[in-house]
């Protein structure tokens, strides 16, 4: 992974002292009692008989302690924050390092993450010769810094609005070659190419370029009726999530889009104060509008007539309008001169020609007039502000006095008053109708009899709202309810503000009211900064924000600027994280956590017998596999001995014989060191019988006479040391029949003289000490070659033939895959007889030879360790 030697270190070595506290884990583990598990168990009567040992459960098992210690050690190492890194950057102490930062506002985006690899590199550097150049703000440049100073400077770097000054930076550079790290802001700057060329000449190797910010900047927002056209610079062309926000921080609308521009719908009754791109933390992600912090300036036009005090229109309008707005009152001339955005006019007897002209101009420029009607208006129907200015003078006003007080019709959904609740007690007694409605007149609200209550006409850039009833309780109870205020408020929200032509601010002192900081936050300044001159675009002394001159002016980062993606020369290589080494904190934490978790998981599984059995099985299987692979030719456990029976003329008998030997084989395997590898049936003429030490011949009730070749084969078998064990099963049958059957079967065989097994015969002690030879039948007998005959035979005194009538085969067969109670001697003795016969067949007379017993045992030990 690394071409250079590696260095291992800790960023927070004091944490390693915690390793000394690890032995406490043992002590703490003992203090914690294991959990008490409840289990149902029927054999409690057994448990009660036992004396429970003192609880050693307080001592957790060793594996648990080791696991805990290991896990905690991993966590401690992780806290110490180890890392491995190459040594190549510390070999040369005199090597100079230069860091260049395009410290514009865009650099703030994800700064701490992006500079982390370079900080990690610098941490390992021992050169005291690091220069940091801030290309936008050269006053912040630092020279001859050591690693710690450099890291501190990088972490606390400030990013200002303004543009990179490459020419100035070039002048500051010396001729000395340096390892160069470069933080670009991702935005194309003029005159950068020459700077890059200069750096390329001075760089040792390639220039290490830090990751560029994924920066998105709102370049422009153009608003029209209910829509905002938004233009965005998106350096990585990723998804942009943009919100339109109100001054009080509520989201007016939210969109997601890719690309450079998007048209956003602006709901009625809303006036976005700023637009904001989410997931961006720089000043370019905010676009302020002049609505930010702006409140409409409302003028209440005083009637020229007598002031009726608390009963005047002005009083009621003032009361309604002043709740949240800047309200002035005066004559039309005074108010327009004072810069009112909205004029509210109560019932009046008309205006002079000059006032009418002023009002017309006011509306043409974008102003809003709200006009209440009443008896005075009715008295002078030629009022141009109502009709004459809009249409022909013949449009007269006709008063229509209703017989009853009338309700207000609920506001339609598309009305600007949508959602306002009309109190039930608000009734209108009288209203004024226009004789002929203007084509452009929109009826915004009606009475329940269909007569208009509020109408609107656009007039130039401005609007005229006519309330067809009085602002005072004289005609309508609306003025006594919150509804009048709510209606006015909705009209205010739908009126233009800051529509007046921009004045030349260059000679006016204004103030910075709200400032966007480098992190993209809007700060309301408690002490507004005085500003003499507002430049066309932001700079170090004119940060983005809301400036107040004659009216509010929004100065955004993107103002008078255009943005393009930066292109860096080929030798600006992305700083490779691999060369920076690896921090091991994450993996170590993860391992520690997994170990702690695994303790519980292991405990659960170890308490589960199923799992434990599986583990045991798996371990056994693994061990077996290891043994097997270690020695593929290892001996099998079983002896190469098959218990064999003679195949007769009766299938049923053969099956029984087979089952009997299977049962006896199981007994032999369990109780002796004879481990038969199976059971085999052999025909009397088979040569296979010569491989067998003993042949079991279960006589069928009607045994056939042996063929000559079969008899000869069996004779040879016996002569060669084999034993023929014949079970006549005749004890329970007619003795004559049994004897006839036996004689028929033995016909052709050379049978030595026989006798009942004498008391001192080896057959009685070859394994078990047997007094009798009970089989399925009690008092069964076994005949063997007489002692005299055996002594003279060539078979070391072993009888070549054993004949019995006990039907041992039945019991042996029943013992196959079964388990007799050791107390049931009716079954136990026949099994023991079988064991003794087979031990006799395999071991011969050695039990009789007590003289040589020591030598025999010694030899046995040598043969079978």
């Amino acid at each position, binding site marked *: 992974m690394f071409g250079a030697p590696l260095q291992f270190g800790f960023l927070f070595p004091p944490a390693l002292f915690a390793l000394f506290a690890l032995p406490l884990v043992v002590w703490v583990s003992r203090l914690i009692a294991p959990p008490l598990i409840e289990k149902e*168990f*029927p054999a*409690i*009567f057994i448990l009660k008989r036992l004396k*429970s040992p003192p609880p*050693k459960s307080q001592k957790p098992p060793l594996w648990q302690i080791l696991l805990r210690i290991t896990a905690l050690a991993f966590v401690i190492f992780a806290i110490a924050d180890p890392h491995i890194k190459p040594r190549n950057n510390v070999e040369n102490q005199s090597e100079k390092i230069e860091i260049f930062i395009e410290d514009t506002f865009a650099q703030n985006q994800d700064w701490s993450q992006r500079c982390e690899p370079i900080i990690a590199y610098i941490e390992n550097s021992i050169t005291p010769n690091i220069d940091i150049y801030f290309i936008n703000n050269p006053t912040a440049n630092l020279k001859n810094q050591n690693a710690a100073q450099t890291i501190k400077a990088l972490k606390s770097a400030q990013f200002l609005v303004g543009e990179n000054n490459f020419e100035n930076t070039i002048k500051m550079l010396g001729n000395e070659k340096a390892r160069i790290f470069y933080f670009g802001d991702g935005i194309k700057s003029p005159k950068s190419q020459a700077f890059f060329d200069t750096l390329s000449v001075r760089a040792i190797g390639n220039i290490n370029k830090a990751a560029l910010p994924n920066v998105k900047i709102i370049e422009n927002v153009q608003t029209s009726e209910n829509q905002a056209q938004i233009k965005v610079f998106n350096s990585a062309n990723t998804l942009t999530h943009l919100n339109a926000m109100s001054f009080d921080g509520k989201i007016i609308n939210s969109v997601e889009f890719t690309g450079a521009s998007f048209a956003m719908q602006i709901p009625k009754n809303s006036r976005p104060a700023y637009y904001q791109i989410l997931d961006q933390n720089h000043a370019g992600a905010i676009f302020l509008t002049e609505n930010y912090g702006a409140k409409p300036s409302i003028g209440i036009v005083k009637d020229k007539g007598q002031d009726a005090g608390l009963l005047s229109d002005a009083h009621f309008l003032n009361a309604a309008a002043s709740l949240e707005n800047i309200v002035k009152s005066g004559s039309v001339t005074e108010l327009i001169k004072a810069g009112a955005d909205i004029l509210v006019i109560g019932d009046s007897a008309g205006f002079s020609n000059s006032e009418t002209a002023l009002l017309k101009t006011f509306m043409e420029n974008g102003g809003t007039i709200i006009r209440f009607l009443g008896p005075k208006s009715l008295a002078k129907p030629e009022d141009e502000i109502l009709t004459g200015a809009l249409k022909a003078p013949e449009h007269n006003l006709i008063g229509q006095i209703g017989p009853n007080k009338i309700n207000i019709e609920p506001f339609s959904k598309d009305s600007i008053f949508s959602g306002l609740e009309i109190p039930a007690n608000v009734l209108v007694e009288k209203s004024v109708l226009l004789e002929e409605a203007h084509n452009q007149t929109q009826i915004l609200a009606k009475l329940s009899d269909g007569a208009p209550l509020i109408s609107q006409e656009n007039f130039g850039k401005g609007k005229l709202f006519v309330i067809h009833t009085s602002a005072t309780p004289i005609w309508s109870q609306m003025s006594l309810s919150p509804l009048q205020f709510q209606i006015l408020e909705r009209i205010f929200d739908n009126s233009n503000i800051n529509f007046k032509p921009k004045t030349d601010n260059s000679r006016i002192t204004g103030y910075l009211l709200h400032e966007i900081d480098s992190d993209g936050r809007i700060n309301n300044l408690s002490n507004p900064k005085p500003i003499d001159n507002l430049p066309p675009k932001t700079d170090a002394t004119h940060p983005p924000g809301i400036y107040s001159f004659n009216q509010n002016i929004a100065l955004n980062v993107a103002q008078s600027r255009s943005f393009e993606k930066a292109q860096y020369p080929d030798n600006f290589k992305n700083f490779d994280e691999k060369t920076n080494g690896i921090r091991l904190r994450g993996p170590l934490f993860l391992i520690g956590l997994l170990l702690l978790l695994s303790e519980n998981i292991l405990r659960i599984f170890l308490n589960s017998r199923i799992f434990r059995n599986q583990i045991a099985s798996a371990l056994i299987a693994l061990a077996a596999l290891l043994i097997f692979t270690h020695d593929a030719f290892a001996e099998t456990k079983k002896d190469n001995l098959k218990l064999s029976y003679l195949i007769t003329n009766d299938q049923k008998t053969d099956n029984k014989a087979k089952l009997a030997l299977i049962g006896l084989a199981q007994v032999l395997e369990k109780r002796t060191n004879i481990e038969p590898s199976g059971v085999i049936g052999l025909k009397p003429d088979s040569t296979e019988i010569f491989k067998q030490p003993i042949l079991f011949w279960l006589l069928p009730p009607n045994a056939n006479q042996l063929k000559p070749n079969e008899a000869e084969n069996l004779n040879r078998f016996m002569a060669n040391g084999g034993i023929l064990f014949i079970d006549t099963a005749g004890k329970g049958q007619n003795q004559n029949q049994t004897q006839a059957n036996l004689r028929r079967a033995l016909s052709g065989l050379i049978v030595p003289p026989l006798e009942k097994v004498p008391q001192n015969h080896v057959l009685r002690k070859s394994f078990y000490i047997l007094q009798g030879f009970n089989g399925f039948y009690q008092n069964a007998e076994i005949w063997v070659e007489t002692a005299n005959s055996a002594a003279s035979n060539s078979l070391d005194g072993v009888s070549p033939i054993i004949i019995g009538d006990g039907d041992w085969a039945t019991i042996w067969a029943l013992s196959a895959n079964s388990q007799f109670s050791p*107390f049931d001697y009716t079954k136990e003795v026949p099994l023991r007889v079988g064991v003794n016969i087979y031990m006799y067949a395999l071991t011969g007379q050695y039990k009789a030879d007590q003289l040589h017993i020591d030598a025999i045992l010694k030899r046995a030990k040598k043969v079978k360790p």
Partner: protein
Amino acid sequence: MNHNISDLLNPHIKKLSNELSQKLKIFDAAFERNTNLETIPHFDGRRKQRKSGIGDEFFQFRPLQANESISLIDWRASAKSDNLQIKQKEIHAKNRLYIWLDLRPSMFWVSRDNLLSKAQIGMIVALAISEIARKNQIEVRTFTKTQKSFASGLIESGKYAPAPVAAPMIILSDCMHETDEICEFIGKFRGINFPKAFGIINDSAECDFDFDGRINFIDKENHETIIIEDCQSLQEKYKAEIQDHFSKICATASEIPFSVAKTDNSVDYYEFAQSLLNAIYRGF
């Protein structure tokens, strides 16, 4: 984990018992072997028992004893003898096998979900043996008078200890009660001269006590609890004690005599069923 009585009558148990009876079929031969024995089964399911009683065939002559009716005297035999002789006939009784399955709450306890309960194993074995017995004209009974079927009879009788009967019988229990109590129960069958088999069925956890850690053991049947602080350390002692418990039960049972077979629910119950069958078949 506890099962309940409804688990004993589900189709799965019936299927397992059928499979078991198929495997045990080879031992039908053992019944057939009875044709060579002194007692010969009749096709009507009755057999002679070498005992005097109500029957059709001659059994023996014996001297008249005091208080016996003179009408019983066989005069022809008495003429040949010095004493008054009575002619006795051999009893004819139906072949019957009684099976009792202990169904006290402990029999339904299972240490692991994937194991059969002791009661379920008992039911499978009992149904399989009864199936084989029926094929051999042996009537299988439970220790209750009213029963709709053998299985329901087993369930009904399983709640109470059985009274001794003069017939071959199989008793299936987990012996999870005090040793003396079990031995006393077994002792009630002393003197009944018929083959008797005692099948002990356990849960493997009862034999091995393979538990770890600190456990509060609860016996719901007797409302007893005991907290064992370190189960692992007690395992060997427990094994020795439970072995002693079963040894005493086996010794008592052998004296009666009962043939004893034992199994647990972690191994195949085939050998167990076969042992029980072997133990009682000679009674027919």
